[in-house]
């Protein structure tokens, strides 16, 4: 399946609950065959948006198009999509087999066809040995697979996932991330995936939609979102630890940073900072040893920040000169929080991601 074509279009969608807006004039288009992740903190409206796409809730205003057709007022089952729920939503009284083919059964798919598809899907998900069990006799990871199998067997082109991995332990979650991505790629599914976990977003997404307070902050590839956050919110939300934000006065006049009085903010990732020969003098506050590297907390002119140093390097002295990679700096307007793209270096050298030490 080719990618690029818009599969789901969200046009000026708002959803009000009483007078509070869970979604406030949101527009975004999700492409066919892509893994799109709706990422944001609790209450940012990401689940609401997913439920609107599914048809489980109706928007207050705006339009949602799937495959070009406005689906307003269309029942969830007519939208040609499947969904994996956070709680898995397995039917507790039915066996794994019955759970997986539930949808085919209520849609009147012939039994031979049901069993044929079941064999393929069960083999793919490694569920062939568990078909006679009840959901309560399965582990969390196995239940998750059943929920996924139920979505896959429908053979619908779109799959919506609402924090499907949040009930699994860390190890299993890491395995499932890889597996989910592999399934999506193999089947060419258009996936819309809701999570508040940036590791999930970074590792699986073709495109991340960062949301905050009912609005979209940024749409971009994981690299774009990480290296060139569009807003101060994204800069602070993506990355563990997040991007450091310095008032421009501390760096003014160097490396293309406009001399300023504090109306702008300079954003720098912890790994884009290093100990230099000369530069603004920072004061050491503490060191956190993570194995492969050290997270150094320090203060520069009243601003606390964190820099990441390889553990092989010696810990910094009490006072040190701070250097940074200018081509990786981000400049934000302090008042609006928006990125000032005019100051971006011409060729962004994508920052190498390293998530090995991040906690999931």
């Amino acid at each position, binding site marked *: 399946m080719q990618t690029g074509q818009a599969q789901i279009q969200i046009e000026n969608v708002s959803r009000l609950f009483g007078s509070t807006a869970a979604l406030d004039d949101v527009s975004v288009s999700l492409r066919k065959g892509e893994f799109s992740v709706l990422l944001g903190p609790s209450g940012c409206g990401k689940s609401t948006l997913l439920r609107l796409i*599914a*048809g*489980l809730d109706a928007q207050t205003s705006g339009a949602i198009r799937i495959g070009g057709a406005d689906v307003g007022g269309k*029942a*969830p*089952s*007519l939208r040609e*999509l*499947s*969904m994996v*729920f*956070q*709680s898995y*939503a397995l*039917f*507790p*009284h039915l066996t794994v087999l019955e759970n997986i083919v*539930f*949808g085919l059964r*209520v*849609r009147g798919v012939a039994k031979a066809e049901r069993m044929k598809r079941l064999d393929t899907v069960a083999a793919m998900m490694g569920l062939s040995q568990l078909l006679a069990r009840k959901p*309560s006799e399965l582990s969390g990871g196995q239940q998750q697979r059943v929920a996924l199998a*139920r979505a896959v067997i*429908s053979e619908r082109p779109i799959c919506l996932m609402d924090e499907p991995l949040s009930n699994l332990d860390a190890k299993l979650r890491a395995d499932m991330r890889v597996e989910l991505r592999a399934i999506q790629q193999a089947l060419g599914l258009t996936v819309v995936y809701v999570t508040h976990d940036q590791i999930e977003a970074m590792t699986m997404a073709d495109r991340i939609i960062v949301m905050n307070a009912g609005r979209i902050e940024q749409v971009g590839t994981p690299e774009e979102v990480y290296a060139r956050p569009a807003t101060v919110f994204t800069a602070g939300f993506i990355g563990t630890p997040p991007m450091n934000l310095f008032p421009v006065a501390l760096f003014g006049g160097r490396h293309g940073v406009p001399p300023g009085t504090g109306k702008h903010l300079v954003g720098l990732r912890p790994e884009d900072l290093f100990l230099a020969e000369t530069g603004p003098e920072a004061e050491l506050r503490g060191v956190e040893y993570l194995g492969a590297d050290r997270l150094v907390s320090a203060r520069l002119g009243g601003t606390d920040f964190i820099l990441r140093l390889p553990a092989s390097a010696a810990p910094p002295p009490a006072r040190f000169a701070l250097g940074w990679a200018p081509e990786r700096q981000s400049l934000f307007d302090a008042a609006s929080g928006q990125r000032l793209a005019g100051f971006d270096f011409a060729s962004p050298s994508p920052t190498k991601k390293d998530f090995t030490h991040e906690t999931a």
Partner: protein
Amino acid sequence: MNRRTWIHAWLMLLPAFVFLIAFTHLPAVTTLIDSFWTTGKGRRAAVFTGLGNYRKMLEDPIFIKAMVNSAVYAAITIPASILLSLAMALLVHRSFRGVSLMRMAFFTPTVLPLIAVANIWLFFYAPGFGLIDQIRLVVGLPSANYVGQPDTALYAVAAVTIWKEAGFFMIFFLAALQTIPQSLREAAAIEGCGRWTFFRLVTLPLIMPTTLFVSVNAVINAFRLVDHVFVMTKGGPDSATMLLLYYIFETGFRFWDTAYAAALTVVLIAILSVVGIGQFFLADRRVHYK
């Protein structure tokens, strides 16, 4: 455990034990024993008759009538009250304006004493000026005496039971329905599962434990609740509403044939045990417990 703790434990249990034995177990055993003896009179002490009392039942037309009536009464009230309560629970298991008022209205009959309920219904049924007759007269039907006619009296009494019980059972069904997660409904909706299909494939199996519980209660109540018979018909007319428990009361405390009443009681308990145990064994295979 050492001796002292044992003595302590028994001493603690003693008060409850005394009451349980005195008022439950001892009477039950005595009833069983009494049922094999004749009723003692002033002139003649009780004599052992073996199964005499039970043989007497087979030739007792009122007992036969009471058994038939009880069977009909159970066959009507049990399914009707369960179906009605489930329907009411489904109706109020939603949110709309006035839903709490509706739930309260459905539950009110449970709070009322059955004696009071029976009196209210007596007024409903009253020929000539009762609620039902007033409606009948408006639509041009002749006046009817539901409670006073042998062919309708049992149904009139059964209607009161259903009215009284359905609201109580509704609470259990409502609680069961509320334990079904909303996400199951949503998952089914995405699969294209209609409301009736969802009810048949998901809701009904998931509330089966409650249905079993309610049906056991309904069976017990069908034999146990006779208060309204005292108020409305006293077993009449012509034994048309003579239920087994009411017959036991009449035999034992009106005619003072206590031995025969004891035998009747044993029959009643036997029926309840068989039906109750049977329900569990039959339903157990089909009930999904969490």
